[in-house]
């Protein structure tokens, strides 16, 4: 077990990023309250659609304030550990950005290119972003998985995933 005290990012006395989180929570809470105020109250409904969002939004703003106070007092999160997680290094944002870009590409193309191609690109791109450098093998594995899953869904479960440009070929 990794017993080293989790070296939460931010080595200073305060975890400044937590202020950002508190701000975001406050914003979500405030917007929830605002959004609820635009709703109409129905008939014969003593509570209406507003009460719940009012309560949730208000509490969220309160929690955001508490988090800000806790942060100011030096509270730090213990970031999550795991089998493959090594918290002793700073976060590797380049990899995260590459993965996100791959996923965005998939979102943009899945309707036109179809699942078999976009899914394979997703796998190959992610594997590459994560450090795999065996491109040919990655492409083969990616296509086997995407075409395989297409057929499992089509034949086994009667769900035709988008065929895209391969319509008629699959």
């Amino acid at each position: 077990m990794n017993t080293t005290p989790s070296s939460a990012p931010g080595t200073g006395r305060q975890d400044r990023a937590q202020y950002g989180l508190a701000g975001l929570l406050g914003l979500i809470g405030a917007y929830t309250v605002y959004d609820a105020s635009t709703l109409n109250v129905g008939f014969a409904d003593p509570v209406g659609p507003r009460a719940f969002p009012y309560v949730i939004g208000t509490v969220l703003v309160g929690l955001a304030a508490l988090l800000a106070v806790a942060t100011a007092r030096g509270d730090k999160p213990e970031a999550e550990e795991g089998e493959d997680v090594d918290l002793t290094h700073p976060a590797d944002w380049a990899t995260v950005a590459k993965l996100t870009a791959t996923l965005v590409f998939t979102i943009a193309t899945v309707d036109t290119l179809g699942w078999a191609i976009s899914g394979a690109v997703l796998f190959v791109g992610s594997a590459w972003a994560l450090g795999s450098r065996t491109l040919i093998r990655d492409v083969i594995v990616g296509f086997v998985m995407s075409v395989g899953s297409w057929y499992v869904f089509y034949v086994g479960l009667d769900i035709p995933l988008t065929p895209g440009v391969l319509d008629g070929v699959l």
Partner: protein
Amino acid sequence: MESLDLLLGGLEAAATPENLMWAAIGVLLGTFVGVLPGIGPAMAVALLLPVTYGLEPAQAFIMFAGIYYGGMYGGSTTSILLNTPGESSSVMTAIEGNKMAKRGRAAQALATAAIGSFIAGTIGTMLVVFLAPWLAGIAVEIGAPSYLAVTVLAMVLVTSVLGSSRLRGFIGLFLGLTIGLVGLDLNTAQARLNFDQPLLADRIDIVVVAVGVFALGEALWVAAHLRRKPLEIIPVSGQPWMGRDDFRRSWKPWLRGTALGFPFGAVPAGGAETPTFLSYVLERRLAKDGGEFGKGAIEGVAGPEAANNASAAGTFVPLLALGLPVTATATIMLAAFQSYGIEPGPQLMTDQSDLVWTLLASLLIGNLMLLVLNLPLAPLWAKLLRTPRPYLYAGILFFASLGAYAANQRPFDLVLLLVFGALGFMMRRFAIPVLPLILGVILGPLMELKFREALSLSDGEASGLVNEPLAVIVYAIVALAVVVPAVVRAVRGPTDPAEQKELVSR
């Protein structure tokens, strides 16, 4: 004994060759996914949910039962062979299990985990068979106010008992409740929090939230912190089996673990962490002079593993009888029920009696299959731990996208997936627990419904929330629940500080 007859009926329905095949597929898939490092039972069920889209409800639940138990067993395999457990519930198993493995007793550790899981799962499921109908019988009588109170209780318990920071627990819960607000209001059909997006007028699919927060969030989080050095994996030599002496030392911890685990699963007190911890401490105390503890004691694997599985079985009591999920896995199963148009709740036992008994019977079958299939397959599963990490996490991304996309086949769901993946990443960075969030997403709308129902009946008088004795009692328990965590900490106090730290850091 009526329950036994119904269970036999369920066994008959579940034991057709086709259904047995679904159970076997479920067990194999569940174990496969569960063994992979970084994937816990909840993520396993969420990722495999789409596989059941094309199936009949009964077959889907049979497969689920297999996936559920398979995923749990896979998780313990990982924690015994690697020295870093994936799920909080297998932390305790890992302590002694890994030491056993290092001493060349990996096979025995896996065997005692498998047999202990089987025994605990079977006893636990039988207890569900008797308790759930009884509880549902009572629950049918309770009205909206009491139901609301019980929902609040579940949320408060799950949020405040678990994790090291209650503030972060409540942040998770209220973020989840906010996500649950998105979409059409149940009474007035006005869209809330939809940012004028017609696609958001439908409620957000819980599968997308779960897969995003669990699978994509985890993959992104690991990608940002990928271990540079490979982990030490202990090979399994020979078939997992136990000698006579191992059995002599294991059977009592199995039973004690079951006794500890089931009640914690059945009451919404926060899953398997507490009972596995208590079981470990108990076995350690009972061992003469500490026994082999610290050097790989089989009791320290047998007890917590049994407690883990018994508590997993116990979660079916509130899930089936009240429609209340208390673990992340149960929450996703509830979502699966809903996708078939089945509303879990007190009526479930009577309205969908066949289905429930088939599910319970398939839990028993899945449990048996797990034992039969996984003892011989353990060395094979161990090889899975060597999956190259780029492939593993690229695969998680691939299947997460497939799962989110397959349900409705619109790219917009993949956008949502990315948003919830980012949220999951953020939650891991800031140590916000995932379970309260998922619980908030699924219980929030239900809670609002009961809240409004209760107040409609009383014409808006606040007294309508507490006009049932049960509701008052439950709110009293909620008040206590805010005090109890302090007591729990006091109970845990006298143990080894190092373990304390390990447990708290989960």
